[in-house]
């Protein structure tokens, strides 16, 4: 009896395998387009950035006449006086924008808009999302208007002129202030959204019981809300640090990097791709980019591990392919 069945098993298996020559790799076809794009626009460019940073490639050498220079670019970079000046600028820029706006103001706005009537709160938060959704060129154009010399400049005509202060274009006068503020107004909304939803998700009964206990608004913020915001605060801080460190779109449009506002990321971009004199320095530009790429790779990997995003993966509950 048992034996007969075994024979049966083998024979059906064979007939089945005949009808099923092609292995099922449905997932492969689904993933193919995104895989190609990721390889072509992420993996190859990462390696390419590393490779180019080892050459002296520039407009002068052309794209083919370059030479391998090993780590010469890195050594040269250390000898530029610019390197550390721009690094210091980058650090100050990232730190101040982060503390004043992306975290500080974001937290303040979240706290205020969750403590005033719902509709008013939502209105102000909607206003603060505008800088993020406004095309960067238009958004920066608005700041240029605000800062321009009379007759256009709004700050000048509304404040400085009536006070009898000197009135020129404010951006060249206070370039650092403006790159921080312009980026800060965009960055604020990230933290604002995260903090607001964290505050709103604090359980109602905890809030109510704190009211029953007679806590004032400030005490409630201090002892109930802020402790619950630790995790969102940490997330926003780390995430925005990386973002600020490597983004340069607003500065590019606002000043182009002039007036001592060329942060590292913009420096690399300007050297290699955006040179007024048409002398593109691919080698040295890639060298700076390499460092940013490495920082980016390390930090983004650390985030994933630290914030346990990889645990968001659920096991598939279907085996068939």
């Amino acid at each position, binding site marked *: 009896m048992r034996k007969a*069945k075994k024979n*049966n*098993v083998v024979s*059906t*298996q064979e007939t*089945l*395998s005949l009808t*099923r020559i092609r292995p099922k790799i449905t997932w492969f076809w689904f993933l193919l387009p995104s895989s190609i794009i990721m390889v072509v626009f992420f993996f190859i460019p990462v390696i390419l950035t590393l490779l180019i940073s080892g050459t002296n490639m520039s407009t002068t050498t052309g794209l083919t006449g370059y030479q391998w220079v090993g780590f010469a670019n890195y050594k040269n970079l250390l000898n530029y006086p610019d390197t550390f000046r721009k690094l210091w600028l980058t650090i100050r820029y990232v730190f101040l924008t982060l503390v004043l706006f992306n975290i500080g103001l974001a937290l303040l706005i979240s706290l205020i808009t969750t403590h005033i009537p719902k509709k008013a709160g939502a209105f102000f938060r909607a206003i603060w999302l505008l800088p993020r959704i406004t095309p960067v060129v238009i958004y920066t154009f608005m700041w240029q208007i605000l800062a321009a010399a009379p007759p256009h400049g709004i700050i000048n005509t509304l404040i400085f002129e009536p006070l009898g202060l000197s009135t020129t274009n404010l951006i060249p006068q206070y370039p650092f202030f403006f790159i921080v503020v312009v980026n800060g107004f965009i960055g604020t909304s990230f933290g604002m959204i995260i903090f607001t939803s964290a505050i709103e998700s604090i359980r109602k009964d905890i809030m109510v019981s704190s009211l029953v206990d007679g806590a004032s608004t400030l005490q409630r913020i201090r002892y109930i809300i802020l402790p619950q915001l630790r995790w969102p605060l940490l997330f926003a801080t780390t995430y925005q640090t990386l973002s600020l460190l490597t983004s340069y779109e607003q500065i590019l449009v606002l000043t182009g990097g002039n007036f001592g506002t060329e942060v590292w990321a913009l420096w690399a971009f300007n050297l290699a791709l955006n040179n007024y004199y048409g002398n593109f320095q691919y080698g040295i530009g890639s060298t700076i980019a390499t460092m940013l790429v490495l920082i980016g790779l390390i930090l983004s990997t650390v985030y994933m591990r630290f914030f346990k995003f990889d645990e968001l993966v659920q*096991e598939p509950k*279907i*085996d*068939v392919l």
Partner: protein
Amino acid sequence: MKMELVNLNKSFQDVSAVKNLNLKVNDGELVAFLGPSGCGKTTTLLTIAGIYKPTSGDIFFDGERVNSLQPKERDIGMVFQSYALYPHMNAYQNIVFSLVLKKRPKEEMQREAKRVSDMLGIGHLLDRKASQLSGGQQQRVALARALIKQPKLLLFDEPLSNLDARLRMSMREEIRRLQTNLGITSVYVTHDQVEAMTMADRVAVMHNGDLLAYVTPEELHERPRTLFIGQFIGSPSMNILDAQLKSIDGSLHIKLTDGTTLPIPGERTPKSCKDGDMVKFGIRPEDVKLDSNGSVRGKVTFIESLGREHLIVSNIGEQRMQLLTEPGNKISLDSNINISVDMRKAQFFDAETGLTLLWE
């Protein structure tokens, strides 16, 4: 269609969900898989459906090995706990979807849809979306969707557990009636023992991935093979008391921990036991009566009204005994009561292994 599982194993990562399952379902039979959640019954069902691949072992449909067949090639219909209707389609589209995939002509679809929807009394609901249907209606549509394919095997995954109690009863009868009339071999997964006991021809009790019993409902209730089954089947559940076998005047008795002895009828003599052995003594609450002449003395610790009856919990020495009484009895908490036990219904289990000492 006959269905057979041979040495079936299914594990997820390192966790073994189904362990070495062997089971045959006869043509036209309705078999219930009964067990607490996480016991592996749904996993088994989904493996039969082809949604899960067995880790090892084989599945046979009418003697043919179907392990590597896709779900759609297995000629099965399935009904889910969540109904699983396609929310963006109306009832008709849901029901005929499998025929659409087979590119059947429109007339056939309409004819078949009418056939199954008349069978289930949902003809007037066909143009409604799933969200516009009540739970019971959704489950009927889901049933129609499974039946329209005229499957050789019907699989039910807790189909009634999202319905309210009254609807559950009527659907129970209806499913059973349809299944018998159509003669479709069925596997019915449930955690509700009443469902399993009332609907199934045979019940497979599963626990932690093991098949504990595979017998008729009557067998399951009257002749539990393990302590687990004894306690799992029946509500309120069987009383289990520690007891010692004691020979008194040549006839075998059990001695409870408070010293009470009860005679064991001959047909209930525990096998391969000797005088002085410790056993687990099982008796169902309905087989225990309040009786002023009863030899067992207890103290009432809890009274619960079940409507038609009262459930009384009493302590016998250190051990708990539940019994059912008519509501008319005037019994108060902490009062002492006398109980008689119908020893012809006694069950005995090995104190260590929990295996029955009475049945094969």
